[in-house]
């Protein structure tokens, strides 16, 4: 039997109050907020963050032998985005990494593939949901990521009991490549297609697993067709308290990532031996049923979904949101355009650039970036790799840069002294420049520093420690 070894989720630091959209666009007042990926985040970088949370408990590297990455907003086409995840997570070279991109259903596809594999597989799903200004998708979408490490055997936090699927070809939601917003058919039609498909798939899954609706402790029903989701949730017939909050209020629907994100939110709180049913409506219906194990309470992700929401802020302006999404074009700084990273140096420094691995000299001195000649003892090539990705740091000094090129000026740069040695000077993100001071605590986060010539310059930045230091 297969199951889940560990899980993690990632919600960006910023949320946009729907009231801000309403007042700018003159649309009906919206309630709550939606999560917004920062200007330096994309599906890949958020996927890395969720994966780090998922792998946080696993000693001696992650053990992931495969990566399945799903998103509707792939930062690259042709080129494999999962390769960036693979590199950033420092996985073994012989691990398989592949994208499942384009359709919303690919999130379930990644998860089902991971559960069906004989190798330890990381299913990562991440999305940036965008609509045209003032539209429903913009209002109700959300940005986020989730990762589940699955295996055919091992110390599971949740056993996969089984599931079923139904597929059907109908026009519910579609988007032509290159467009920022999708189009949808009338909701009542979608509902009429989804509900019978769901009824059939759910009953087959229950039968296969040998449970009834009343055995379900947590029911997740999700999809981008809100009317159909509501109908299906009602039709399954679980106890009312078993229905899981779908986070529309404060996060919005994160599309591809949403099934795994909601599952993570349940794993954050579920007790051992509880049954979780996940029903996903996307070009068909997928049902997956899990049962939590005794191990779950000791293996929860470091910062739960609720805690991540609490550690975020909802004061993002609508104009800034539009700028970050590339919908509102603003005056560029009078500075040269950023230069794309070059392929050979990026490949040579893969461990540094993607996995933030420095070097430690035999005398103990840590070098960031890695150096062949020691700055203290001047020994040559007496170095071993030193992973600094999960090491926290303290701000030694900092600077606010209003002049340099930035997609969200001003750029903030900190000089970081890492716990246990090592210093690095890098950009800070998710930070309020006015509240910065020497001695502040920061942690590393994987970002898209900028994009030039279509090349995404992925690297690490520091952000104020989120959650417990």
């Amino acid at each position, binding site marked *: 039997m297969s199951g889940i070894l560990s899980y993690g989720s990632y919600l960006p630091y910023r949320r946009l109050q729907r009231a801000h959209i309403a007042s700018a666009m003159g649309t009906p007042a919206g309630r709550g907020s939606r999560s917004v990926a920062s200007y330096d985040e994309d599906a890949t970088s958020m996927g890395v963050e969720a994966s780090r949370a998922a792998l946080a408990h696993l000693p001696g590297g992650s053990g992931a032998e495969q990566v399945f990455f799903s998103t509707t907003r792939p930062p690259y086409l042709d080129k494999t985005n999962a390769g960036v995840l693979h590199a950033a997570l420092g996985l073994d070279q012989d691990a398989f990494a592949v994208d499942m991109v384009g359709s919303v259903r690919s999130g379930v596809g990644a998860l089902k593939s991971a559960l069906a594999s004989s190798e330890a597989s990381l299913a990562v799903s991440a999305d940036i949901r965008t609509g045209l200004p003032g539209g429903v998708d913009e209002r109700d979408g959300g940005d986020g990521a989730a990762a589940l490490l699955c295996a055919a055997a091992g110390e599971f936090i949740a056993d996969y009991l089984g599931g079923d699927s139904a597929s059907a070809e109908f026009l519910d939601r579609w988007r032509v490549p290159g467009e920022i917003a999708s189009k949808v058919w009338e909701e009542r039609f979608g509902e009429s297609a989804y509900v019978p498909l769901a009824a059939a798939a759910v009953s087959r899954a229950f039968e296969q697993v040998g449970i009834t609706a009343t055995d379900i402790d947590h029911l997740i029903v999700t999809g981008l067709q809100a009317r159909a989701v509501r109908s299906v949730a009602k039709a399954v017939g679980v106890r009312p308290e078993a229905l899981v909050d779908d986070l529309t209020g404060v996060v919005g629907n994160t599309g591809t990532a949403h099934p795994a994100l909601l599952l993570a939110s349940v794993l954050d709180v579920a007790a051992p031996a509880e049954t979780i049913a996940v029903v996903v409506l996307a070009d068909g219906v997928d049902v997956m049923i899990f049962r939590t194990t005794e191990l779950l309470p000791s293996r929860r992700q470091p910062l739960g979904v609720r805690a991540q929401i609490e550690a975020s802020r909802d004061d993002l302006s609508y104009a800034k949101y539009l700028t970050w999404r590339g919908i509102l074009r603003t005056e560029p700084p009078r500075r040269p355009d950023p230069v794309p990273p070059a392929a050979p140096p990026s490949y040579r420094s893969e461990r540094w650039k993607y996995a933030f691995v420095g070097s430690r000299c035999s005398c103990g001195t840590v070098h960031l970036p890695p150096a062949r000649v020691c700055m203290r003892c001047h020994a040559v090539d007496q170095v071993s790799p030193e992973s600094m990705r999960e090491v926290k740091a303290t701000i030694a*000094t900092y*600077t606010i840069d209003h*002049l340099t090129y930035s997609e969200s000026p001003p750029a903030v740069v900190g000089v970081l002294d890492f716990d246990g040695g090592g210093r690095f000077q890098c*950009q800070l993100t998710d930070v309020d420049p006015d509240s910065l001071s020497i001695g502040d605590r920061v942690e590393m986060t994987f970002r898209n520093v900028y994009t030039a010539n279509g090349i995404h310059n992925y*690297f690490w930045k520091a952000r104020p420690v989120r959650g417990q230091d």
Partner: protein
Amino acid sequence: MASRGILDRVAIVGMGCTPFGELWDKDASDLIVDASQEALASANMTMGDVDAFWLGTMNSGTSGLTASRPLKIDNKPVTRLENMCATGSEAFRNACYAVASGAYDVAMAVGVEKLKDGGFSGLTGSIPPNDGTFPDISAPALFAALAPAYGNKYGVDDETLKDVFTHIAWKNHRNGVKNPRAQFRKEVAKQTIKDSPLVAGPLGIFDCSGVSDGSAAAIIVRAEDAHRYQAKPLYVKALSFVAGAGTGPMDPDYDYTSFTEVVASCRDAYQQAGITDPREQLAMAEVHDCFTVTEMVLMEDLGFADRGTAWKDVLAGAFDHNGTLPVNPDGGLKSFGHPIGASGLRMLFEIWLQLRGEAGERQISNGKKLGLTHNLGGAPGSAVSFVSIWGSEPSA
């Protein structure tokens, strides 16, 4: 291992310096011609008298042809070199060594930079293809990192530091008013400086040197030959240049309140020239005030003030034109702007005028006969530094 220096082995017999500014009607070639012709005239020489040339420029040209083409130099050695913002000084230093070695009788150092044609705010430069992991930080932001570190270490509050920076900008602008070659020749009120829009950290526009075009040149001969060309030559007492290992941004022991490279090159230069009390012995100093915070920190690195006290001395006017040690009496980078390849030689030009009593309205008359220039490239923790000392008399 030794740095012996070339005390009194070479002398400067001629210098030239163009006005610095937005020179829309001149290109780098014009500026090289203007500065070198002025230098030759002041040395009573013609171009044919010069045996070898050193051209300093960062981005305004490559190879010796950048100078040989406009100057129509027929088949003589012309070396183009670059050492970031210390490029002009580096051209001068190499020319001095060539003469001191006996290889040439007469050498010319010329520095030039044409920045305004680029159309950008602040300095720009090209870097080799790389992995994109080096943070793209503007020059003012790199230097602004000194401010919180200094304030934190010495317990100076933000407001006081801002006053210190403001005083430095105010002083250098004030000095520049009396300098016909300066780009900015207006006295600026302290409140205007203080209120100027922020560029990086606590540094406003008026805390930053401007973007400028310009050129300066010097002619160097053996000391014993100097009086053949020039009644009032200046003697090179010390030249020191160091490049740091660039470890500040990766070394937790570096505290961002000092330029260790400046301390090293300064110690070397003082040893070469026999300086023991710079504040007492020097008539004046031209220092690399790329940003106001830089000048404050340099006062300590150059030994003009004790550690943690420069801010007080600045506010007390110690480095004003009438202070105990005038710093940047020509207006500094602040008034001149900073055409990279020219700045080091522009600093030398002020010493040339001052020690020979030709500085006109801004003449310093404290009777001292030594002057210092300091030229910096790079950023805190990762810099190159040049210090030179000149005298109007050979040592006894």
